[in-house]
């Protein structure tokens, strides 16, 4: 047999796979960083606590024939609570932003203050590769985290109860994971934008956390405060006016990504939720308290989902715009 001709070693590959190299490096950095370990611990602890309460309370609820959602054991696992702690998805609406902010707040400005950004930019790589690598690496990690948690949840549920999972449930849980990832991605792109605009990593972290606190805690209070002083007292209104009043309040509330997320996942995880707004008695008349099919629930949350996606895309586009033309110097 003739020996194979020696492989010709080329100095340069035709197209430097800069993006995948950067992605690999960013993922390694994330995984090895203390920050990620802390965030991971936080999410895992939340998950365990939520699972523990839901598992210990699942029996009476799953056995309750009056409950229209009683067949969805795995959805129950995610939503049932004995009111000592909030259910997992509500917990996540608080914690997921922290995950996004934590992974993105120093994406660009720490590279800049370290003096590594200019060194990177002097290499034959496109600028957007860096931004995209930073974003995708964090997103990839978060996605794996949530997918792993969900699979763990399903596995545990299967072992402990032996109940088969309905296809509808699987779709709903997948939808929940997907929306959660989008929600984190929104906060991630927001914090990356902040990391481009603000020169100090600390300032950008504080600003990110400030925004997070504002939307989760203060936004509702502020909106209620302002609306109460501007709009008439709802108790004096006719039913129609009251509905319109409620619509206004809800729409203003929906500016908060927090609200969008909570609405979306609540509808997906509780199949009996039929509307995100108020329903009149006429609308409810004749309705049987039964779960909605998955497609109907999805239809119901589609505006919320696309809202989150749009917000994320806007932030990311802004980050691109700011970063691409910026002069980089030390």
């Amino acid at each position, binding site marked *: 047999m003739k020996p194979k001709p020696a492989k010709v070693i080329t100095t*340069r590959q035709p197209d430097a796979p800069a993006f995948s*190299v950067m992605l690999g*490096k960013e993922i390694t950095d994330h995984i090895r960083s203390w920050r990620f370990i802390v965030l991971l611990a936080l999410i895992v602890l939340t998950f365990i606590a939520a699972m523990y309460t839901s598992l210990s309370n699942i029996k009476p609820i799953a056995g309750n024939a009056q409950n229209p959602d009683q067949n969805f054991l795995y959805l129950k696992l995610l939503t049932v609570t004995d009111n000592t702690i909030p259910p997992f998805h509500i917990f996540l609406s608080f914690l997921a932003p922290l995950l996004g902010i934590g992974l993105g707040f120093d994406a660009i400005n720490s590279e800049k203050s370290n003096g590594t950004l200019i*060194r990177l930019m*002097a*290499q*034959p790589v496109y600028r957007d590769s860096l931004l995209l690598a930073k974003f995708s690496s964090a997103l990839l990690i978060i996605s794996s985290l949530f997918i792993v948690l969900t699979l763990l949840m399903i596995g545990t549920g299967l072992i402990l109860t032996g109940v088969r999972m309905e296809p509808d449930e699987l779709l709903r849980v997948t939808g929940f994971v997907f929306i959660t990832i989008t929600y984190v991605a929104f906060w991630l792109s927001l914090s990356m934008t902040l990391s481009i605009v603000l020169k100090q990593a600390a300032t950008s972290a504080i600003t990110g956390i400030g925004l997070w606190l504002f939307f989760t805690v203060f936004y509702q209070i502020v909106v209620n405060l302002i609306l109460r002083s501007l709009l008439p007292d709802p108790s004096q209104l006719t039913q129609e006016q009251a509905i319109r009043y409620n619509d206004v309040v809800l729409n203003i509330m929906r500016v908060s990504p927090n609200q969008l997320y909570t609405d979306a996942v609540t509808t997906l995880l509780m199949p009996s939720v039929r509307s995100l707004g108020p329903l009149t008695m006429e609308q409810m008349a004749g309705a049987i308290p039964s779960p909605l099919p998955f497609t109907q629930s999805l239809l119901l949350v589609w505006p919320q989902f696309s809202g989150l996606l749009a917000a994320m895309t806007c932030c990311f586009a802004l980050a691109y715009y700011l970063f691409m033309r910026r*002069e980089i*110097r030390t």
Partner: protein
Amino acid sequence: MENPIIQLTGLTKHYGRHLAVDNLNLKVQKGEIFGLLGPNGAGKTTSILMMLGLTEPTAGTATVCGYNATRDAIKVKKKVGYMPDSVGFYDHMTALDNLLYIGRLNGLSELQLKDKALEVLDTVGLADAGLKKTATFSRGMKQRLGLADVLIKDPEVIILDEPTLGIDPQGVKDFLALIRKLSRQKGLTVLLSSHHLHHVQQVCDRVGLFVEGRLLAEGNLENLAEQLFGKQGFVTSIVLENDLIRPWVHEPVLKAWDAINDVSYHGNLVEFSCNRNITPALVRFFVENDYSILSVNQKNYGLDDIYQRYFETETGKSDYNKTA
């Protein structure tokens, strides 16, 4: 003559109303070591960034290795290694890992990457420190690693921004010697900026003087002085035994000489500023007229004087404007 490897034509950069670089024209030939000399804020770094396409010029073009640096930045960056003035590394990674990362970004194949990285580490004298984290590196070591970082991609041109900043004198000497050696061995073109005259003097074939965004003069050290001082380039001062009495009878005679631009005297010191070297003729004149000469001093302007005159004091600059 072959095409210059770096060619800047009419390069201009405004920051708002501030003019950072003003109509810069410069050619650097292959294999040359060119020094950009100028005080802080003269626009050296901005010019360098424009050569790498890291910032867009307001007007003019920068052509490096035959590519337009603004439009074909990626192609330029493939051939140009750039070391910024405060070079930074990923502190949590070892020196070798930092190098490997840059090598991968440049599309070097995995097969030879590690050997190449070890080789450049050896070249810059960091062979022992390759597995240390860069957080523990001293400034001088970081500078060397920065050079390794530039060399790993086999560049044609190396651009070093203030490479000698913050290193001790011995370190500077070694570093510059290394740059010179590399340039000569591999035929690399080197462009380095500095505000430190002596460093530039040590290695550069040609120097460009950069003040307030303008290139004041360029050339090798000898003809720089000539360009800058023009006809006042040669100053001869003669110290006599006895004080001269004003008005000095020979002053009109000497002033009539072609080569002499100006004569000044006070006490026993006479100074001539001339457009060529006429020291022997002057001495002969004094001897023939029975003056006793104590000493003759011929002053050649070095870069030092240029530096003193233009960079270090604001008054120097206004002096220059007056004389110009």
